[in-house]
C-alpha cells in the first residue's frame, strides 16, 4: 500500500491564538481515520486546511506524494465532503442540484447516473422536488447520491451524524462501509465515537494543538478506548 494522504508540520492560528501546533499524520489508501477532540480544539479547522479551504501558516499537505498546492483542482476533483450542512441549494430540485455539482466535479453520463443514484438512496420519488423541503435525513441521502455520481477517492466527513435519526445513520454507515470496501479513504471528525469506531483504522485525538494517538490495533476493546479517550481529553 502506498502513501495516500500526508500532512506535515501543519500550524494555524485563530486570531492570535495558536490553535494547531505542528501536526503530522499519514494515511494509506483504503484506511479510515477518526479525528476526535473537544469543541474548539480545531478539528474542523484542520479539516478545512487539509481540503484547501484554509491556508496553514506552516506545513504542507501531500496527496499521492504531491503537494496539493501544485494541483489544487486535481485534488478537489478527487475528494468528496460531507458535513452537518447539506451543501445544496434550497430552490433547486434534487436532480438539478446533483447535475450542477457533479458537472462541476467533471463527472460524465449524468443523464443515466443521477436517476440511478437517486434510486439507490431511495429518493427517486423526490427527484423533481426542491431540496428546501427535504428533511435532514433526506438531505444526507442526497449527499450520498452526489458521492455515488461523482465517485471520489477520498472522503472528508465533518460531524456528519448531527441531526440524523437512527435509520438514516444506519443507511449512512452502510454507505461508508461499502465506500471503504471499494478502496476509498476516509477522514472523519466526530463526537459520536461509537458510530465510526468499527470502521476506523487510526484514531487521533486533538488536544491543545497536538495529536494524541490511540493505537486501535493494540487489542483495545471499545470500552477501553473510551476510558483512554476520556483520560486524554480531560
Amino acid at each position, binding site marked *: 500500500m502506498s502513501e495516500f494522504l500526508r500532512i506535515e508540520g501543519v500550524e494555524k492560528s485563530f486570531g492570535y491564538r495558536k490553535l494547531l501546533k505542528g501536526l503530522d499524520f499519514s494515511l494509506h489508501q483504503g484506511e479510515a481515520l477518526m479525528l476526535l477532540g473537544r469543541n474548539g480544539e480545531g478539528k474542523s479547522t484542520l479539516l478545512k486546511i487539509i481540503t484547501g479551504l484554509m*491556508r496553514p501558516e506552516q506545513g504542507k499537505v501531500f496527496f499521492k506524494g504531491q503537494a496539493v498546492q501544485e494541483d489544487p*483542482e486535481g485534488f478537489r476533483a478527487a475528494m468528496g*465532503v460531507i458535513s452537518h450542512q447539506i*451543501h445544496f441549494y434550497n430552490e*433547486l430540485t434534487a436532480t438539478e442540484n446533483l447535475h450542477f455539482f457533479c458537472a*462541476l466535479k467533471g463527472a460524465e453520463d449524468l443523464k443515466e447516473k443521477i436517476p440511478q443514484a437517486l434510486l439507490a438512496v431511495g429518493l427517486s420519488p423526490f427527484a423533481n422536488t426542491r431540496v428546501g423541503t427535504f428533511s435532514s435525513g433526506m438531505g444526507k441521502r442526497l449527499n450520498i447520491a452526489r458521492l455515488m455520481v461523482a465517485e471520489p477517492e477520498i472522503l472528508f466527513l465533518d460531524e456528519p451524524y448531527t441531526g440524523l435519526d437512527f435509520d438514516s445513520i444506519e443507511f449512512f454507515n452502510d454507505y461508508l462501509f461499502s465506500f471503504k470496501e471499494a478502496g476509498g479513504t476516509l477522514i472523519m471528525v466526530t463526537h459520536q465515537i461509537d458510530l465510526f469506531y468499527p470502521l476506523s483504522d487510526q484514531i487521533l485525538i486533538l488536544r491543545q494543538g497536538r495529536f494524541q494517538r490511540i493505537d486501535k490495533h493494540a487489542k483495545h476493546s471499545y470500552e477501553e478506548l473510551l476510558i483512554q479517550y476520556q483520560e486524554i481529553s480531560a
Partner: protein
Amino acid sequence: MMRQAARLLAKDIKLDLRSLENFLSMLFFAVVILLLFAFALPLDDESHELMAPGLFWVTFLLSGILNLNKLFQVEKENACMDALLLSPLSRGSIFLGKMAENMIFILAMQVLLIPLFSLFFFEALMSHFFPLLGLSFVVCLGFSSLGTLLGGLTTDVRFKEILLPLLLFPLLVPLLLAAVILLQSLISGAGLAAEADWLKLLVGFDLIYLVVSYLVFEFVMEL
C-alpha cells in the same frame, strides 16, 4: 475555465428566475428612490432635464448594490459556498460567473428602469434607449468588477450593509463622473463620441478593475 464559469452562471440565473422576488424588490427599490427624488426636488421640466443624468446613475448605484449584497448571500444557505470552493473550479471561474450574473441582473433592471425613469422623471430619456443601454453595459462592467470583488470580501464581515457602500462608492467616483457626463452628452444630442476622453477613462476603469479584481479574487475566497 469558461465552461465552469458558465455552469455557475446558468445555476445562478435559474435561481434568480425561481426567486423573482429578488429582482422585483430591486426594481421597486429603484422606483422608490425615483419617487423620493421627484418629491424632494423642484418639479419643473427644466430642472429635471438638468438633474436627470446624475439622478439616473445614482438610482443605478443605490439599487445595484442590493444585488451585490445578494450575490454571495445565496451561496451561504446550507454552506453551498464550501461546496463550490471544494469543487475543482478555479477561483477565477467563480469570479467570472458571479460577475456575469450581476451584469445580466442589473442590465435586465436597466431595461425596465429606463422607461420608468422617463415616465416619472424625464420623458426625453426614452428616445435614447439603445445608446443608453450600451452605455449601461460599459458602466456596469466596471461596477460589477469592483462590486463582485468587494461583495465577496464583505460576505462574512460585520456591518457589511454599511461597509460595502462605504468601500465601493468612493472607488466608483471616476465611473460615476464619466457616466453622468456621457449621459449629459447623450441627452444634449451630441452623442457619446463627443466625450471621447470620458469614454476612454470609463473603458480604462473597466479594464483595470476587471483584471485586478480577477487577480486578487482568490485572496478573498480563502476562509
